[in-house]
């Protein structure tokens, strides 16, 4: 048989495959119907066979290039991306993740660094005004005082939704940025954690010394546990990425990074969830006129919930 005849015979099938690829690219598989899908599969196999033999049978280079592209295009339609499966994620979030967090040394390191620095900075700011002036800055101090000069319950009721949205965008954004910065050998994450802890601790310590203390506590108590834990979580996930480049555990650096990244993703997911919870509390509960005892109770309950998540679920899995 001649090459020309062979091409003539094949052209029809290749065109068909091309048409099916085009349909698959723009429509859902389900609407195409089973018969067309199995036809697609057999056409794809035929095109693969043609490509494999192309060189041996000296098809012209143009045709070979066309076949490479056709097979690649069909390959992409046959093997598609996997979308989220919620059940798998439930398993990941409620069984695998708590156990991993419990054993994650990066998390406890981030936890210790953040809370240690935070507490130290708060003590210093409480004890000395010069420290707060240097760390927080006088402009910021004046703004904080002005912000909490009135009880927060005076805020128009309508603004709660807006503030909740703002906190999601702003705080979860900071968390994700902190995570990405961890990729820079962990130094970025460490730096972000430290600077957050020093400044936040300074603000807290300073606000405890001034007259607006009660308004301030009304506002921050309820949301504090979720939000600060979320910052620690995102910093830890980032550090995991960064440290994986240094301590590779015998893997190649990119392989080690890849493994750390797939483990760190659920952690950052948990952090985003916590940021959203904190934003809801911050937007709706903190500025409400409920007594301080309720807000303190919310803080206690949220700490208990998180402890239950990490220790309760984590230890169960371990045994």
């Amino acid at each position, binding site marked *: 048989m001649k090459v020309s005849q062979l091409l003539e015979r094949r052209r029809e099938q290749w065109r068909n495959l091309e048409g099916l690829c085009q349909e698959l690219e723009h429509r859902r598989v389900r609407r195409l119907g089973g018969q067309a899908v199995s036809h697609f599969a057999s056409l794809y196999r035929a095109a693969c066979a043609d490509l494999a033999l192309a060189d041996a049978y000296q098809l012209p280079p143009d045709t070979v290039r066309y076949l490479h592209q056709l097979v690649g295009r069909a*390959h992409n339609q046959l093997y598609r991306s996997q*979308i989220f499966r919620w059940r798998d994620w439930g398993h990941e979030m409620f069984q695998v993740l708590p156990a991993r967090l419990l054993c994650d040394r990066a998390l406890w390191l981030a936890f210790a660094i953040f809370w240690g620095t935070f507490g130290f900075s708060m003590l210093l700011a409480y004890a000395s005004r010069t420290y707060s002036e240097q760390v927080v800055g006088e402009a910021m101090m004046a703004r904080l005082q002005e912000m909490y000069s009135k009880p927060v319950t005076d805020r128009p009721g309508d603004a709660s939704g807006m503030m909740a949205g703002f906190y999601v965008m702003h705080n979860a954004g900071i968390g994700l940025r902190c995570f990405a910065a961890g990729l820079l050998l962990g130094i970025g994450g460490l730096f972000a954690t430290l600077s957050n802890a020093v400044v936040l601790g300074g603000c807290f310590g300073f606000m405890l010394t001034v007259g607006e203390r009660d308004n301030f506590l009304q506002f921050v108590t309820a949301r504090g546990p979720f939000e600060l834990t979320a910052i620690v979580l995102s910093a830890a996930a980032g550090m995991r990425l960064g440290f994986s480049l240094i301590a590779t555990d015998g893997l190649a650096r990119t392989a080690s990074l890849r493994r750390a*990244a*797939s483990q760190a993703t659920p952690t950052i997911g948990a952090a985003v969830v916590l940021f959203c919870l904190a934003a809801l509390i911050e937007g709706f509960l903190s500025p409400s006129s409920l007594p301080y005892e309720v807000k303190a109770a919310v803080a206690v309950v949220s700490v208990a919930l998180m402890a239950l998540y990490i220790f309760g679920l984590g230890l169960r899995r371990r045994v």
Partner: protein
Amino acid sequence: MSKPPRQLDSRIEIVTPENIAFHYVLAGPFRRLPAFLIDVAIRAVVLFAIGLVGTWLFSLAGATGLGWGVTLVSWFALAWFYGGFFETYWNGQTPGKRILGLRVLTVDGQPINALQAVLRNILRDADSMPMAAVGGIGVPLYMLGLAVMAANDRYQRLGDLACGTIVVVEQRSKLRGLASLGQTEIARFAENVPLNFKVNRALGQALSVYVARRELFSAERRFEIARTLAEPLCVLLDLPGDTNPDLLLCALYYRTFIADRPGEFESLADNSRRIEVGTP
């Protein structure tokens, strides 16, 4: 599975589960930048639209604050999860990538999963460093991403390295048939070529490239180009030295691709019959 690309044309070879190797062209920074800019533009327009419509709708209902809340949350979602969402549901493509024919794959040539799609877009933030302050607004310079891309041989930025993904170009070309050689003169000349002369692979490729493009050249130019190959062939085939080089190459092409070659393609023909049976 993929082998490391050959540097010169940045093609990457992928072996499918069907055990076929095919080629992709890797997308470098200068192919990816326009796709990214298109995505940025789309996002900016959608952000603006959401801000306008969201706040307007909610203010009609008398809940301006809530409207802003919803708007801000959707801005956050759009800023961080736009790429991840589309690359998950559009099989590795964002709108910008689709317009410019790019696609994200794993380094093994498989489609990416949702985890990789989301993570590589979150880690974009590390690639975008450092920031430059232009008139009070931080503008990402992407120097780190560019440097990392230049330093590895698959044009992967940091996010790609962490997720094991690559970006490839999906080229489309039309199927062109064989070049038509109408003249009977060529067929007649082909008789002069000894029957036992078989054109090997490299020569076959050279012939089809030449014949596909000879239409573009004048007769003198064809003569000049074809002579390089035709002169040693004349000696080999024992043809007279004054043979027209263009005619000789066309005749060989005719012999190889158009004229009968009995017995050579039986197995291939079998394959085609088998497929036709499966046709619905």
